[in-house]
């Protein structure tokens, strides 16, 4: 980010034609953001202060009903908290799987690194819904897992708790979002100069000490970036609860979808949307700060952080 002030300064210093050229460079993304992010959110914000009539139409009269409903009814708060819980679990598990796997590929594999890495990326090519359905086939009452357990005489009746449960949602989401964590973690591992690892060993640190005191801290920006991906994406997910969840796994995006797509209560839907946006922006800000502070530990100049 430290390039921004410099760019600003150079705009003022440059001659008009160059300035215009720069404007053309900045304009498309700025327009994009304005049309597809700023304006829609402004619309949502405006709409959140309106009410609805008996027929469910938004009426142009200022009203705080939607905000009041959001803050007074436990439904919205408890669903938001529950969603956080799921997102945190999914993120932790995805990180837990990604770090050893990425470490293995980055440091231990000598040949076929690219192949292994792309094997992890390949699932991203398969549609989300197909993968969720695959889990249905695996976890269902007459699914692969239950058939196996019964065949192996581990259980004598199908286990119902696999599918249509919180765990099914978590498994599905971890499967879907782990590659998003793995990619930045792997990149972080790859960027660690091997000489540092050698130096650690030369100075008498064992393998485990080297991993926890040198390698892992240096990979933290990647872990944080990946974890943020998983967390934010899980927070906004509404398909997994619908496809894999049971009767009590309502997540906040299901509520949003319900408010816009079913109840036609657009003001309240807007309120929830804005609250989610604020939460996500706050989270991104916090993690990007954390990322930078970890990155600057490394060489004093934030080399890794600057690269991202």
């Amino acid at each position, binding site marked *: 980010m430290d390039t921004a002030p410099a760019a600003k300064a150079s705009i003022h210093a440059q001659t008009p034609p160059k300035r215009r050229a720069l404007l053309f460079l900045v304009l498309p993304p700025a*327009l994009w953001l*304005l049309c597809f992010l700023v304006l829609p959110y402004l619309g949502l914000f405006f709409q959140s202060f309106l009410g609805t009539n008996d027929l469910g*139409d938004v009426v142009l009269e200022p009203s705080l009903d939607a905000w009041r409903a959001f803050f007074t009814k436990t439904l919205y708060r408890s669903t938001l908290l529950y969603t956080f819980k799921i997102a945190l679990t999914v993120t932790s598990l995805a990180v837990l799987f990604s770090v050893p796997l990425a470490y293995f590929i980055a440091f231990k594999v000598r040949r076929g690194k690219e192949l292994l890495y792309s094997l992890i990326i390949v699932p991203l090519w398969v549609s989300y819904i197909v993968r969720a359905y695959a889990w249905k086939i695996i976890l269902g*009452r007459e699914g692969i897992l239950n058939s196996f357990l019964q065949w192996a005489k581990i259980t004598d009746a199908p286990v119902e708790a696999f599918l249509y449960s919180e765990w099914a949602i978590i498994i599905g989401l971890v499967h879907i979002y782990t590659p998003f964590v793995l990619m930045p973690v792997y990149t972080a591992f790859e960027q660690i100069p091997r000489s540092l690892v050698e130096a650690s060993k030369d100075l008498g640190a064992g393998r485990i000490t080297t991993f926890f005191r040198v390698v892992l801290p240096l990979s933290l920006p990647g872990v944080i970036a990946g974890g943020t991906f998983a967390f934010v994406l899980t927070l906004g997910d509404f398909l997994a609860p619908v496809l894999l969840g049971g009767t009590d796994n309502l997540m906040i995006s299901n509520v949003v979808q319900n408010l816009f797509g079913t*109840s036609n209560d657009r003001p309240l839907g807007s309120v929830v949307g804005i609250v989610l946006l604020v939460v996500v922006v706050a989270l991104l800000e916090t993690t990007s700060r954390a990322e930078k502070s970890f990155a600057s530990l490394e060489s004093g100049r934030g080399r890794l952080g600057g690269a991202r």
Partner: protein
Amino acid sequence: MIRMSSWVSAAGLAVLGIASLGCQGEKKPEGAAPTGSAAPAAQKPADPAEKFKGQTLNILAWEGYADPKFTKGFEEKYGVTVKGTYFGSSDELVAKLKSSPGVYDIVSPSSDVAYTLVQGGLVDPIDTSKIANWGDLADALKNLEDAKKDGKQYGVPFTWGPDYLIYDANVVKEEPKSWKVFYDAQYKGKVTLWDDISNIYLVGQIMGLDKTNQAALYNMTDEQLAEAKKKLVELKPQVRKYWATAGELNDLFKNKEVVLAVGWPLTVGTLNKEGLNLKGVIPEEGATGWIDRLMITSSSKNKDLALAYLDYVTSPKAQALVFEATGGYCVANAKAKEHMSEDLKKSPCVTEGETYFKRLNFWQYVKERKKYNELWNEVKSAK
């Protein structure tokens, strides 16, 4: 700065303009008209077949309401394409219609939201003189007040039927007499309910609220709603999953996840053809039911074609095909019976007719719909 902002707004408008053009382009008639079968009729210049040729009719309807089994006849007659989009709940219909005006030509609202569409100006009055079979359609359906405004008719009766209790007769050996079977401990985790506020009507019925006044289910007091919520939360451990679409309900039965459900004849009809042994029953508390009428949206760009479709789909032959395609949804035209297979003639809506009609408590307009919706979400989020 000023120049910048005017640039931005001009370009923004251009982007929006292009986007909306793009959307309109999408709605243009698509696909080539089926050739051959409609050719002889199409040679007369004044023939409607010529007029409509190549157009696309967009139907936003309940699952199964744009089945090729009966839409094909219309497509061939006029050389048009019928495109169906299915919705999963009444509220979804209203939300979809409001959020995308101009996309859909015909909708199939049930009796709980028909009033909303009519009063909200989302649908147009229908010139019933243009519907050849109007006289043959059931009076009970034509006379419903919710589809009328200022003496004008807004809906063409299409189908009606129950939200009855469906059970897997291979597992549930004895026909359930009461909805209370859902609470039976031996079927724990084997029940599925529809993901819709109609569950509130259902428990209202179990509570006996509609014994004296049918409308009571649709106008519950706060205390009654609280009681209904309690009953629905109590039922949760029994429920495997709330189904969102008829397709999902099919999967639940097929994969042996559930043995009891609240659902429609479509499910029984479809799955028994695949070798399952499902039965539908109206328990002693009664069942709610739905009356679906077809309406022409006020934003439709193909109103004449839509009217031609309503004329077609209410004919005895088409209605018999609808009956067959939906696995036994009662149809509005009694003359359809002549075209039905012997098997389907055994359906209670043919044999019992009016008595069957009277056994159902048909959905009505719910004024406090927001409250019902919120309550249903609260039930779903309850742990």
